[in-house]
């Protein structure tokens, strides 16, 4: 029975001392929660914001131009430019380097454009084949057959002082910066 007057009072838009403190307490905790939320959300999403505007990509040397014979496609490896101390060998990455002639190159990601499995180069038939779902690509990276909807992902490259370097640092997926940098390849005729 003792609580009844309080209930009646609060329903009349007046507020008791305890009720006010209770509401202030909730407000105060809400404030603390929102102050805490800023660093928590910021930390949680830092892996996205760090790479804004292709910020993950940087130039990585693959080796001397002479190491890649003209007209051939060779596997090259490089260390990812963004490395954490615990990355181990996962920060090493492979790519297929095709030297067309002179300083004219094509550098393909090993990741199949379908679901990212590593494609293998078969020089005799001039095809890249994927072991997972059977995607195949021609020597210029364009789609030959199988489930991929596009050609292999291509890195931007430059030749300086006899060294070839590529712009790398991100896992190539259909939505990644690498894919949008070089654009879609037209299917081979």
């Amino acid at each position: 029975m003792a609580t009844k007057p309080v209930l009646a009072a609060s329903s009349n838009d007046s507020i008791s001392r305890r009720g006010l403190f209770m509401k202030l307490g909730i407000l105060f905790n809400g404030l603390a929660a929102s102050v805490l939320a800023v660093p928590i959300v910021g930390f949680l999403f830092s892996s996205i914001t760090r790479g804004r505007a292709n910020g993950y990509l940087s130039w990585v040397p693959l080796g001397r131009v002479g190491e890649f014979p003209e007209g051939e496609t060779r596997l090259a490896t490089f260390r990812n430019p963004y490395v954490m101390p615990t990355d181990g060998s996962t920060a090493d990455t492979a790519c297929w380097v095709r030297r067309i002639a002179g300083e004219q190159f094509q550098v393909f990601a090993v990741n199949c454009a379908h679901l990212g499995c590593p494609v293998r180069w078969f020089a005799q038939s001039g095809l890249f084949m994927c072991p997972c779902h059977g995607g195949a690509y021609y020597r210029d990276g364009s789609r030959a057959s199988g489930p991929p909807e596009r050609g292999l992902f291509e890195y931007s490259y430059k030749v300086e002082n006899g060294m070839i370097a590529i712009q790398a640092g991100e896992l190539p997926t259909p939505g990644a910066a690498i894919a949008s940098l070089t654009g879609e390849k037209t299917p081979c005729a």
Partner: protein
Amino acid sequence: MRMMIGKIGEWFDRRLQLAAPVREVAEHPVPRNTASWWYVFGSAALVVFILQFVTGILLALIYVPSAGEAWSSLQALNHDVTLGWFIRAMHGWGSNFMVAIVLIHMVQVFLFGAYKFPRELTWIIGVFLLLMTLGMAFSGQVLRFDQDAYWGLGIGASIASRVPILGPAVVKLMLGGPIIAGATLSRFFALHVFVIPGLLIGFVCVHLLMVLKLGINEWPMPGRVVKRATYINDYHELTKKDGAPFVPYAVWKDMFFAAFIILAVAACALYFGPFGPTGRPDPTIIQTVPKPDYFFLWLYALLSLLPPSLETPALLIGPVVVIAGLLLLPFLSGEGEKSWKRRPIAVLTVMLIAITLGTFTHLAGFTPWSPHMNAWSSDPVPDRYIHESTALERQGALVFQVKQCRNCHSLGETGGQRGPSLDSVAVRLTQDQLIRQVIQGGGNMPAYGKNLSPAETTALVAFLETLHPQGQVPARDASRDVALSDENPSGAKP
């Protein structure tokens, strides 16, 4: 001695006051006919979950969640730490059993109509428990940080990247950065060890609480229809008239089955041993054929069989439709017949899904869609195809092997199955059609025009023309003789 234990028990219970409620729960009446072997899967899932909990903690004593060291710590568990291999095997087989038991439990609940009023929320929580179990299975596969885990993450990232607009952000959130590396493993470790198990414990408690509050589903009888207005009264009457205390009347079957399952997991662990780890997670080693664990094999098969244009919609919309369907099920058919004998569509749905998943899983066992990467250099050309053949035809057989045709086409049952077997190709295609197919490709075959010299094409087609079963004549173009003869009656010229 017994007095002493009794006194100690009394001392605790005066403070905890748990004995009475526990006894009440244990002895709550259940419908007599639910003491059935069909009702043991829920408790079995709980027991396997506890097993996973214990073995998981044991593994965490040695395992190092670091991209550089996880693989070596698993090797140490397998080879150096006493019985480490057995605990790993128990945990791995436990996860397989858990997925299987949760699925069986779900099918049983569906076929027995147990999701109907008033147990809708129990079902919905159960759907989330299934999703978390699958989440544990996938994240656990990632923690076995080997080649399969690495490339499996790549596949996950490729799927996530297809989300419109948000794709790249989702990929980086999932991987913890731009590439699969240390941060990726650490966040999957956090998910597998803290986040999902925490949620699982909470959801399992709510799930169990509701089973106790609402009572176990009675054995479905054809014709006994669920109505919202009368069900609760009917159920209480049933447990009053034909009920029996859960302990010991029904519980002994749960206990027997739980012990059987634990022994089965242990037997599998003992006999088959732990899963992997396969090769080192070094992305520069590309000689690998990544494959998911068995509960995701159906997805692996689906992804190679869907037409490319349907793939992204199916990947992004499919799961939403399936999960929404499962969550809405109790609201769409919350009343009515419970018995599977009066629910033919329910039975057919279960059979259809089971056959589909089973077929996909079976196909993924031998992956007919993948090229056999070593077939060209290791599979011999069957004797009968080169016996008494001409030099040109033998040259063609060489071209066939060297140009990796064998990776996708089988001869005499060996070689890839991506393309059709060529044992009787000469019966299906004429010489002209063979030349066209080889040079221009088509029908999912690459064009080889740029990689074959005219001489190689001639030799290859000459060889292909010899590939026909004995007694069957090769296909030939009927107009060919006329067209090539000097006496062309029509005299038409292009």
